[in-house]
């Protein structure tokens, strides 16, 4: 029946409307989170820059001593540190990272290398455990609001395992935050660190005249105290970047969902209005038909109305 159709449509409109409210709220939340994540990334910059500049100073003083974290070995096993989110509803945010990592992993296996997986975020863990990959470590509840302590915990494990030669190279895979509208998958070599000179060259180039620096206890000791901090700080900035990207992706996905819901509501309202009008027309026709049947002896009834009514009655009979 037409009335039933109208009711069903109204119910659907209501449900789409509440979905829209939710996606709209998530969109707004994500927007503020992106802003906050960007502020945090900006605040983290002075420390990272200062560490890099101290490394520049060290490089300038010729203290590029050998250190386990700088050791380049032949790669027998490669470790992947993959940063994803704990929650979905973020568009292609997670799948982009996971796909890039898996492709590289396949390529490395073809070259005869073994792999280790260090996963950050529930999504990566779900994906790789479902496909029966061997997972070495997995962390959760880090990516929404990463803290330095989180970065330190992960970096500690990675450094420990790398120094124990459990793996010979570490790749970091995450979504890099370019702008609000653009994030791209970044795959970076995390360990071994490039030589101190290269790190220094990537810095701001503000190194002072080299020979002037005094190091205590010694350049080598400073370096070995500094490198783990440098690794931590790099991982921390990757986590912050990933978190900003996650919220930006979610913001975009939720905006699309809200727009779609709006469109759907317009379409459904139109269908509902049509159904309502149909129902009213039918009802009027029924009343007119009834009245006419009662007063059928009278021949006042205009012919075209009569014709229309018979045609309509036939049509509804066919339908039911």
């Amino acid at each position, binding site marked *: 029946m037409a009335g039933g159709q109208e009711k069903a449509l109204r119910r659907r409109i209501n449900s789409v409307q509440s979905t829209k409210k939710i996606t709209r709220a998530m969109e707004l939340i994500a927007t503020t989170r992106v802003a906050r994540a960007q502020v945090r990334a900006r605040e*983290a910059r*002075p*420390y990272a820059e200062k560490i890099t500049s101290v490394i520049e100073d060290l490089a300038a003083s010729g203290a590029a001593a050998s250190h386990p974290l700088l050791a380049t070995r032949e790669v027998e096993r490669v470790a992947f540190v993959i940063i994803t989110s704990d929650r979905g509803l973020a568009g292609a945010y997670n799948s982009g990272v996971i796909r890039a990592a898996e492709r590289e992993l396949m390529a490395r296996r073809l070259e005869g290398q073994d792999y280790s997986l260090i996963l950050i975020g529930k999504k990566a863990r779900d994906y790789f455990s479902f496909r029966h990959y061997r997972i070495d470590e997995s962390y959760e509840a880090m990516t929404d609001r990463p803290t330095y302590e989180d970065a330190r915990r992960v970096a500690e494990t990675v450094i420990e395992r790398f120094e124990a030669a459990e793996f010979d190279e570490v790749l970091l895979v995450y979504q890099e935050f370019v702008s609000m509208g653009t994030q791209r998958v970044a795959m970076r070599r995390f360990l071994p660190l490039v030589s101190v000179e290269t790190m220094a060259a990537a810095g701001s180039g503000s190194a002072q005249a080299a020979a*002037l620096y*005094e*190091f*205590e206890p010694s350049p080598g000791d400073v370096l070995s105290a500094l490198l783990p901090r440098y690794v*931590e700080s790099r991982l*921390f900035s990757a986590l912050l970047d990933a978190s900003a990207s996650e919220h930006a992706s979610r913001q975009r996905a939720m905006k699309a969902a809200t727009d779609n819901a709006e469109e759907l509501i317009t379409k459904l309202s139109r269908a509902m209005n049509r159904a309502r009008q149909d129902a009213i027309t039918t009802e009027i026709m029924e009343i007119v038909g009834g009245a006419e049947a009662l007063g059928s002896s009278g021949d006042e009834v205009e012919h075209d109305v009569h014709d229309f009514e018979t045609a309509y009655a036939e049509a509804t009979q066919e339908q039911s």
Partner: protein
Amino acid sequence: MVLQVDLVSPEGPVYSAEASMVVARSADGDIAFQTGHVPFVGVLQADRVKVFLLDGSEQLIAVHRGFVEVSGDRVTILSDVAELAEHLDPERAKAALERAKAAISANIEAGPDLFFDKLKAETRLKVHDTFMGRD
């Protein structure tokens, strides 16, 4: 001539001030910086850093590990665990110290984290005592 002092943690700048002198404890013992110090990079021990402010007061900072870098008339302290003395909570530090001690004595294979916790609590208490004693 004044020294520009900045305390920077990985999560953001923590403290910044202008000072006449900074005393820190590096690997070989206390070291003081005044304007015109040679460029210097040192590994800090878990201890206090004393900043002598221009108005004659002192600012105490508990630093549990980190570096100090001096160049020009800027002193930068890089630390992932540093607190201003007035923000320390002695009760919490005491409780943490007890917890760490108990955990260490209960566990022969105590990891470096536990010792670091113990050291952190001890440093906090020490810096807090200095802070209170001064007033």
